[in-house]
């Protein structure tokens, strides 16, 4: 396992996160360390009978009935609320 700062950049891009340069080095090495430890999973052998024995819980369904729901604080909680159009404003997409 060799987790680099480039790997971190790639994942940060996927996860929409930023890191300072000093954070990056520490993070990359910590994550490398953790991923190295996780490598031990590859040694675990699992019999198919074990997987077959797992119970699968049932999905619970909802009847198709309207439950009216007003949400308080929609505008108060919004970081940039456009009151005129009752919508959330976001900066330009690209």
């Amino acid at each position, binding site marked *: 396992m060799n987790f680099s700062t480039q790997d971190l950049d790639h*994942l940060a891009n996927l996860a929409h996160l930023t890191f300072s340069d000093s954070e990056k080095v520490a993070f990359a090495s910590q994550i490398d360390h953790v991923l190295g430890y996780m490598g031990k999973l590859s040694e675990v052998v699992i019999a198919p009978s074990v997987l077959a024995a797992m119970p699968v819980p049932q999905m*619970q369904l909802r009847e198709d009935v309207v439950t009216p729901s007003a949400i308080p604080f929609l505008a108060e909680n919004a970081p*940039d609320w456009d009151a005129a159009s009752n919508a*959330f404003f976001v900066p330009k997409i690209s």
Partner: protein
Amino acid sequence: MSISQLQDQYRRGEITASAVLDQTYARIDSHDGEVKSFLFHTRALAYEIAGEVDARLAKGKTLPPLAGIPLGVKDNMHMSGEKTTCASKILENFQAPYDATVIARCKEALMLPIGKLNMDEFAMGSSTENSAFFPTRNPWDFSRVPGGSSGGSAASVAAGFVPLSLGSDTGGSIRQPAAFCGVTGLKPTYGRVSRYGLVAFASSLDQIGPLGRSVHDCAYLLDAISGHDARDATSANLPATQVVAHLAMSQKFLKIGIPRELIGPEIDDAVKACVESAIRWYEQQGHQIIWCDMASFSAAVATYYIIAPAEASANLSRYDGVRYGLRDKKADTLKTMIANTRGHGFGAEVKRRIILGTYVLSSGYYDAFYAKAQQVRSLITYEFQQAFQNVDVLLTPTAPTTAFAFGAHAQDPLAMYLADIATIPVNMAGLPALSLPCGFSDGLPVGMQIIGRAWDENTVMGLGHQFQLGTDYHTRVPAIGSVA
């Protein structure tokens, strides 16, 4: 004071709920400056409910068992109209627009919500050092952590601020701080308590549970918050528990399993000694002790730190600065805004786990990490099922050590993760488990864990209750003022 004592005083008309609140806030105001268990208080709501309790008392009406009992709430459960911060900058000013199901049920029970309790940010951590606001101190030793992530929940009970609190447990977040602070805490069976309104960390593992001074007190709270909730599709279609009633029955003789893996060299000698003496105590009561092997436990931590971050990486994607929470207002494009908001709004541990979770789900790594971890999770569940064919419960230390000093694991996340070895397998299999005090080492509490079959909180708590009827570890309190 225990719940039963408070109930008696209410019944005899010796106290009012408003007076209980006055005393509660007085004690918090005097001493929580040192412990720092609460993030903020919910006085207006508490006094409103106290007024209702007192009005009903005055009319001689019967009250639900927990009426007028103060309650602390971990700050990851919504209380409508109050903030829910998850101890994160990204939600610092978020106002909850609805009640979590557990909160609605506590309000219905006329409990008095005292305030919201500190925690590791988004419940990620084992020390409450990851709170974005301040660390909570262990009431037994202010230089030590209270454990985590429900550190505020455990410390507030230990310090005698509240008799009961709500915590959440994803890999040990109720049990480990309960052990570190010398209180009792239960992680119920997955699906026993609704997660609706609990801010998700890892959805398949998260479970809300009670912390209190005794098993008996915790049983009251579990009975109040459990039971099916149609708004949580993973909530089991079962009625509320009736553990309080069960505790009144005589204890049967049980087979208690001791996993060898959890009493080995990674456990501190002092902790081991306390747990071993508890094992002997149970043996003397007539229970049968059976040693067993749980080989898959050695892979549990690695499994957990794949599955939990994977789920968390998706659960935390909603904090994008669009609809609520923090936003970087300087960014002029959407992607920069989202990335900066998250980059600045999340603390180091949360970012670490998002990256880890993103990695194990990403193209090319999914099978080796996430898919494999799910298989190992099945193996762990399977081993528990096998073990429970021979024993009724498993007994282990809750944590390998007593409370550690602040900063002890600051540079080594993996060392902190490995300390969850005894609690993590339980979440993997969705089982109920209790942590209760079983001794002291250098003035610090030691906790033991009792793990039961799915849905068998009765047996787990019955056995814990028996221990507390015969020992006094749970009645000991730290020297903060004088605990009533």
